[in-house]
C-alpha cells in the first residue's frame, strides 16, 4: 500500500516536471472533530491553492482522501468544486473514537498535488452543547416561574388577571348567534397540529364549544389539516359531554376541506356566504388568507373575533375584525376562558418572565450607553453576547 502511495507521488512529480510547472497544494489543511454533534463526523477544512487565485494554472477541483495511518492506504471520500474562498468538507462516515488522517488533493488539468497528511482526528459525541447554557438558563428560569405559580394556584391562592376585551366578547358573540338562530364559525388557522398556535386555538375551541352547547347554538369548524380535524372532533365532543349535551354533538360539522391554503379559503368563503354565521372566530396561525376571510366575514355582518401570533397578519385582523387577540393574548385565552386556577397561574408566571426581560433590557441599554465612553461593566460586550447569542 505504501508503494501505491509512492507511485502516486511519483506520477504527480513526473507530470509536473514534464510541463515544467507545478501545482501548489491547498493551504492550511486541517481535520478536527465536528463540534457539538452526536458523533460520527469530522470536519476537514482548507484554503484554496494559491494557483486557484492566480488564474495561470487551472484548478479543476479538490478531493478529500482518508486513511487510518499517516502513510496508510488512502481512500477517496469526495470531490469538492473549486471557486470558493475557503473549503469545508464533513466526513460523516467516521467511527467514534477511531483516529483518521486526511489529505486534500488539488486537481489540475494535467496534474494533481496532495497536501501532507493532516490528523489524527477523532470523532466524538458530545453530551452538552456548551454554547447553549444561556438558553438552558432561560428555559429553566421561565419554566420555574410558570410552574411555581401553577402550584400556588393549585394551593388555593387567588390570582388576579386583567380583563381581555376580545375574550369578554366571546360569550356575547355566541349569545348573539343563538338569538339569531345562526351558526358559529370557528376557523383554527391553516397550520397543522404541530404548530403551537393551532394547539392553542383548539383548546380555545373547547371552551367556545362548551358555550355553544350550553346555548344550544350550532358550531361549524372547517379544517385545513386532517390532524387538526381529528383533534377538533375530540375536543368538541368532550365539550358537549361536559355541557351535558352529548346528543347535540354533530361530528360532520367539524370537517376537512383541503390542505391547500387558497383552496381552503375558497371553501371557507363559500361556507360563510351560504351558511351566514353570526359569529366568526379566526384563531391560530394565519398567512395571507387572514384578510380574505375577515373581509368576507365582515360582508355577511358577523361579529368577528380573531387572534394570532403572526405579526404580519395582525394588521389585517385589527383592521377587519371587531376584536383581535394580539400575540401572547392568544395563548392566554384558553386559561382566561376556562378560569381554571392552574391555567391562570401560568399567566402570572409569564408575567414574571416579562419582568426579568424588562430588567435585562434596561440593564443592557445602560451598559451600551456607558460602553461608548469606554466604561465596560463586567467586560460588557463579551458577557452580553454570551447571554443572548445562541449558536
Amino acid at each position: 500500500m505504501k508503494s501505491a502511495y509512492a507511485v502516486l507521488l511519483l506520477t504527480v512529480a513526473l507530470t509536473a516536471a514534464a510541463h515544467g510547472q507545478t501545482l501548489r497544494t491547498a493551504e492550511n489543511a486541517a481535520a478536527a472533530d465536528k463540534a457539538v454533534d452526536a458523533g460520527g463526523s469530522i470536519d476537514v477544512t482548507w484554503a484554496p491553492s494559491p494557483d486557484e487565485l492566480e488564474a495561470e494554472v487551472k484548478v479543476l477541483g479538490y478531493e478529500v482522501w482518508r486513511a487510518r495511518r499517516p502513510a496508510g492506504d488512502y481512500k477517496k471520500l469526495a470531490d469538492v468544486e473549486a471557486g470558493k474562498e475557503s473549503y469545508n468538507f464533513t466526513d460523516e462516515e467516521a467511527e467514534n473514537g477511531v483516529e483518521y488522517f486526511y489529505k486534500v488533493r488539488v486537481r489540475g488539468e494535467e496534474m494533481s498535488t496532495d497536501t501532507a497528511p493532516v490528523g489524527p482526528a477523532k470523532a466524538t459525541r458530545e453530551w452538552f452543547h456548551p454554547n447553549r447554557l444561556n438558553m438552558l438558563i432561560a428555559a429553566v428560569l421561565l419554566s420555574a416561574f410558570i410552574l411555581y405559580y401553577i402550584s400556588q394556584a393549585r394551593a388555593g391562592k387567588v390570582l388576579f388577571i386583567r380583563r381581555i376585551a376580545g375574550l369578554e366578547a366571546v360569550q356575547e358573540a355566541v349569545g348573539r348567534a343563538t338569538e339569531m338562530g345562526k351558526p358559529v364559525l370557528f376557523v383554527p388557522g391553516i397550520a397543522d397540529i404541530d404548530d403551537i398556535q393551532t394547539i392553542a386555538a383548539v383548546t380555545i375551541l373547547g371552551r367556545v364549544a362548551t358555550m355553544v352547547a350550553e346555548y344550544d347554538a350550532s358550531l361549524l369548524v372547517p379544517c385545513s389539516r386532517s390532524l387538526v380535524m381529528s383533534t377538533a372532533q375530540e375536543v368538541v365532543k368532550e365539550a358537549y359531554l361536559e355541557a351535558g349535551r352529548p346528543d347535540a354533538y354533530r361530528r360532520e360539522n367539524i370537517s376537512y376541506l383541503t390542505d391547500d391554503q387558497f383552496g381552503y379559503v375558497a371553501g371557507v368563503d363559500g361556507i360563510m356566504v351560504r351558511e351566514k354565521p353570526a359569529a366568526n372566530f379566526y384563531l391560530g396561525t394565519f398567512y395571507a388568507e387572514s384578510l380574505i376571510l375577515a373581509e368576507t366575514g365582515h360582508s355577511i355582518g358577523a361579529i368577528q373575533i380573531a387572534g394570532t401570533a403572526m405579526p404580519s397578519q395582525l394588521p389585517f385582523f385589527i383592521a377587519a375584525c371587531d376584536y383581535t387577540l394580539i400575540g401572547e393574548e392568544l395563548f392566554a385565552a384558553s386559561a382566561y376562558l376556562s378560569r381554571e386556577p392552574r391555567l391562570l397561574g401560568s399567566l402570572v408566571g409569564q408575567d414574571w418572565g416579562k419582568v426579568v426581560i424588562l430588567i435585562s433590557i434596561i440593564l443592557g441599554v445602560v451598559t451600551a450607553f456607558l460602553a461608548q465612553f469606554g466604561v465596560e461593566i463586567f467586560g460588557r460586550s463579551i458577557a452580553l453576547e454570551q447571554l443572548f447569542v445562541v449558536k
Partner: protein
Amino acid sequence: MDGLTLFGTWIAAFLTLCILSFLYKDNPFYKFAEYLFIGVSAGFWIAYNFHNLLVPNLIDPLFGADGAFPKLVREGQLDIRLLTVIAGLLGITMLFRFFPKVAWVSRYGIAFSVGLGAGLMFIVYLQANCIYQIWGTVQLSPIVITESATGWHFDWGASVANTLLIIGVVSALVYFYFSKEHKGLLGGTARLGIWFLMVSFGAAFGYTVMARISLLIGRMEFLIDDWIKETLIALGLL
C-alpha cells in the same frame, strides 16, 4: 402557443374569471370553481404527500430495494431503520378514526404530534423570538455619542431612533402584562405600548399593499397577454 397550451390557457382564464366573480356575490360560477378547487387541491396534496412524505420516510426505508425488510430477509440483519415500523403504527392509529367506536386509538397519533410540536416550538420561540429579540434591543444606546478627530459628537438622529425603539419595545411589552390592573403608571405605559403597536400595524398594512396590487397585476396581465392576445394571434387577428 400550441393547441394544448392555448386550450389550457382558456380553462385557466375561465377559472380566473369564476373566482373573480365572487367579488360581486356568490354565484354558480364561483361555486363551480370553489368545489373544483377543493377537490383538485385535496387530491394534489394527497399525491404530493404520498411521494414526498410517505415514500421517503416510510416505504423506502422499510421496503425499498435497500430497505430494512429486504435486508432482514436477505441477510438476516437487523437494521436500525426497522424502528420506522413505529412511525407506520402511529400513522395507522389515525385510520381508527374511520370507526367512531374505536376512534380514541387515534389519540396516540395526535398526542405524538402535539407533544412533538410543543417541544419544538418551546425551543424555537425561546431562541429566535425571545432571546434573539432581546439581544437586538440591549445593543442600543439611547444616547449615541461618536468620537472623531474633532472631538465628541452627539448623533441625535441615531439617539432619537434608538430611544424610540427602546421605549416602544418596553411599553408594548408592558401592554401584555396580565396580572395587574392597567391603571396608573402601568396603565399609562401600556397605553403608550398600544400606540406603538398601532403605528406598527398601520405601517405593516401600508407596506403590504404594494405586494397585493402586484398579485392583481399578475392576474390581469395573464388575462390580457396570455389569454386575449394569444387567442387573437392564434386566430390571425393580431
